[in-house]
């Protein structure tokens, strides 16, 4: 139904939010667009109804390229509803007029028809008592539900949601999301830019993960959220934050690394106790053992924290002449740590021959309350 080919947008300040977008939207699709900030998600949405004019590429709606000059954009836009982050209800009109007037002006409906439709939709979004209110008298959540009703009144073929809950108080997100969820169930074609992963997962049949101005990975919610193929996607959906070190000399500054770990923990709100466990593990494995028995150590330390799983991961890959088995550590403290149920340990052999060996040690630290 809507086909986007090689869409590119460059702004005057030389930023390029969209590099090369290719996607087809089928009737009945509920598509969520996710991705880090500043990767062109909203720009893509705004290009689809030409609120932002793309630099090049084609947008084909029902066989017609709407980026071409001479295309009647007003007619195209009547078929595409848009819900904005900042609601944008018309401030000088009452709620009922906000929903009625576009129908009268644009679709040529009679005042009675427009009123009946508006009242039906107001009932659906649960705001039939606010008929004569003005937008500035309503809460954000109420305004956004009215905005959705205003869009629905035009009977659009597709509705574009541009971060519909981003400007709302957390207490109001739910009421708006449930209205959108209801719409998704009725088989409407929708496209939603959102930062609410769980919401995206529940309502969509397709997820577009955007990064650096392209659709970086696309798939069903299960594919994207549970089995992402690409590293960037995985990091994003699990909300991972990583820290990496390479220890390749005996002079490695352990103090600096400790300080950075503390700052990292503070930023991500990781408990001090868990961080202490992590540093203990790094010290015992890397410094006291592997590096201690080698003149020319080569150790890669990778620390990851997943906000989503609330788990701290430590991964140590090393090259050495001999294998170090963490279970044989002489440190009492480290042994106690291994015994804790919230700690896991896994050792993987990568290579072991006459030239030396390569092993990988993976540890994870959960928080007790999380269990």
């Amino acid at each position, binding site marked *: 139904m809507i086909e986007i080919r090689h869409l590119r947008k460059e702004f005057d300040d030389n930023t390029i939010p969209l590099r090369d977008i290719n996607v087809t939207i089928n009737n009945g699709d509920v598509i969520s667009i996710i991705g880090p900030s500043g990767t062109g998600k909203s720009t893509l949405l705004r290009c689809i*109804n030409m*609120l932002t004019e793309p630099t090049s590429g084609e947008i084909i709606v029902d066989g017609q390229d709407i980026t071409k000059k001479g295309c009647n954009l*007003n*007619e195209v*836009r*009547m078929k*595409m*509803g*848009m819900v*904005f982050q*900042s609601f*944008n*209800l*018309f*401030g*000088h*009109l*009452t709620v*009922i*007029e906000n929903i009625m*007037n*576009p129908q009268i*002006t*644009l679709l040529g409906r009679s*005042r*009675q028809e427009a*009123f009946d439709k508006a*009242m039906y939709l107001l009932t659906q979004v649960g705001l*039939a008592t606010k*008929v*004569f209110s*003005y937008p500035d008298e309503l809460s954000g959540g109420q305004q956004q539900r009215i*905005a959705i009703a*205003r*869009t629905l009144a*035009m009977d659009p073929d597709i509705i574009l949601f541009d971060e519909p809950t981003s400007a709302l108080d957390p207490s109001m997100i739910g009421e708006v999301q449930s209205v959108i969820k209801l719409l998704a169930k009725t088989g409407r074609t929708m496209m939603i830019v959102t930062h609410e992963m769980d919401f995206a997962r529940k309502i969509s049949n397709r997820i577009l993960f955007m990064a650096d101005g392209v659709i970086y990975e696309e798939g069903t919610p299960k594919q994207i959220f549970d089995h992402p193929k690409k590293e960037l996607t995985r990091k994003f959906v699990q909300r991972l934050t990583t820290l990496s070190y390479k220890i390749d000399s005996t002079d490695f500054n352990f103090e600096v690394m400790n300080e950075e770990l503390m700052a990292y923990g503070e930023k991500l709100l990781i408990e001090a106790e868990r961080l202490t466990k992590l540093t203990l593990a790094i010290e015992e494995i890397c410094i006291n053992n592997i590096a201690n028995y080698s003149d020319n150590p080569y150790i890669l330390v990778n620390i990851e924290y997943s906000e989503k799983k609330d788990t701290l991961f430590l991964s140590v890959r090393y090259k050495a002449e001999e294998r170090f088995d963490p279970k044989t550590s002489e440190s009492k403290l480290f042994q106690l740590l291994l015994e804790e149920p919230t700690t896991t340990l896994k050792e993987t052999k990568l290579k072991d021959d006459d030239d030396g060996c390569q092993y990988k040690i993976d540890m994870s630290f959960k928080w007790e309350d999380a269990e």
Partner: protein
Amino acid sequence: MKKLLIALFAVLLLCTPVFAEEIDVSKFEKIEDFNGLNIGVQTAVLYEELIMDRVPDTAFQYYTMPTDMILALKSGKIAGYLIEAVGYGVHKANHPELTTFKEVPGFISASNIIGNNDKQERLLKEMNEFIRNGYENGLLGDDGSLYQYWIADFDPETDNVGVKDFTFTGENGTLNIAVEGGYEPFSFVSDGNLAGFDVEFICRFCVEYGYTPIFNEIPFESIAPGVETGKFDIGMNIVVSEERNETGTLSDIYYTCPVLLVILENEKIAAPSFFESIKISFNKTFIRENRWKLFVSGAGVTFLITICSIIAGTIIGFAVYMACRHGNILANRVTDFFLWLIHGMPTVLLLMILYYVVFGSSRISGMWVSVVGFSLMFATAMIDMLRVGYNAIGRGQYEASTALGYSDRQSFFKILLPQAANHFLPIYSNEVVTLIKETSVVGYIAVLDLTKISDLVRSRTYEAFFALILTAIIYFIISALMVRVVRIIQKRIDPKRRSDRKVLDGIDTKDWELF
């Protein structure tokens, strides 16, 4: 320390009038004694050149109207003022406490200036012939009938020969005549008619040579520039000097008279009682010669200029704004240039440039030129207001309406403008009041508006109080009226003032319990 300084300053302030009082100019022997004291003179008559060399340290104070000089003399701002003998006669009649200094500063001669246009050569010839004949047949000169009637034996109460006493054939066309209008006995308004020495002189000239005169009352300082641009055919009563002769073409001299230095009489003259004097001035200002009619017509002119300018300015401003709205670079550049030009210019200058330069060669009356000028000024204000109002509503409203499918025109008129109006209407009513007040300068381009009328009346009555107060009151009334109209419009179009029933007018709501 600070308190001490303030006290010292206050004492000095108190002393100044005392010092000023002590100089008794009536005891002076010669003009040189006035050196260092302030002397008043009418703008553009150049009488100061007669005594400038003798009083090198004197600062001359320039006044537009003789009335103001008398006021300044009485309040001690000047020690004396220069006026031609004929003018003094009238002053003395109205203010007995005036007298003249014993030494006569000099004599002045006056001529007419002929407009710089295609009639110039012919007019100059005819005018000089008329003046030459005038001296011979007893019209001009010290014994001439004009001098006798208007100067030697002038009675401001009854003498009012003017335009009404002549019939013009106009077989050789019309002439635009520039006169001061507030300069008794040369040109002044009596009983609603223009009369005086200059008026009678030029009427006789027109009758003899078959012209119909059209009189323009404008300040002295504007006569010469207006004539040089060809706007006027004849400018009356130009004091002859070398400098002026270079730019215009002057006729022969048509009268000569001494210039006097007027000072205050030393002895105090018993003044009439307070209520008596109020009664006299009220009578003079409004009742005599039906002068109240002048105020009515002046207020009418001011009102008309204001209304026309507001309507035209609003329409022009709106049209220009619409043309610039889409960011057409050329339209915006041109508009910004004109905005900058009009914003940066004093109103008087804008009007004079329009009157003498832009419309210099056309016959559009000063009244319509001022409507053009004020329309332009109001249009610039309107454009600014629309810009401010539009910027105040934010881009979201435009995007939302566009995304729904509104065309650009629909979204502007149905969504953006109604909201912008709420933001700019309060500023609009301020601009209207500003405009009304600004119109008071149109006297400079020969429009007899309220302020100019008040000046003309004051120049005859030599009384400031009632004329000024009444003028102020009329301005207040006009402003209040206009502000009220804007406020009514504002209420009318405010969407939030509608009742709920009005919102759903004509809709069957029985399925819903809304009311």
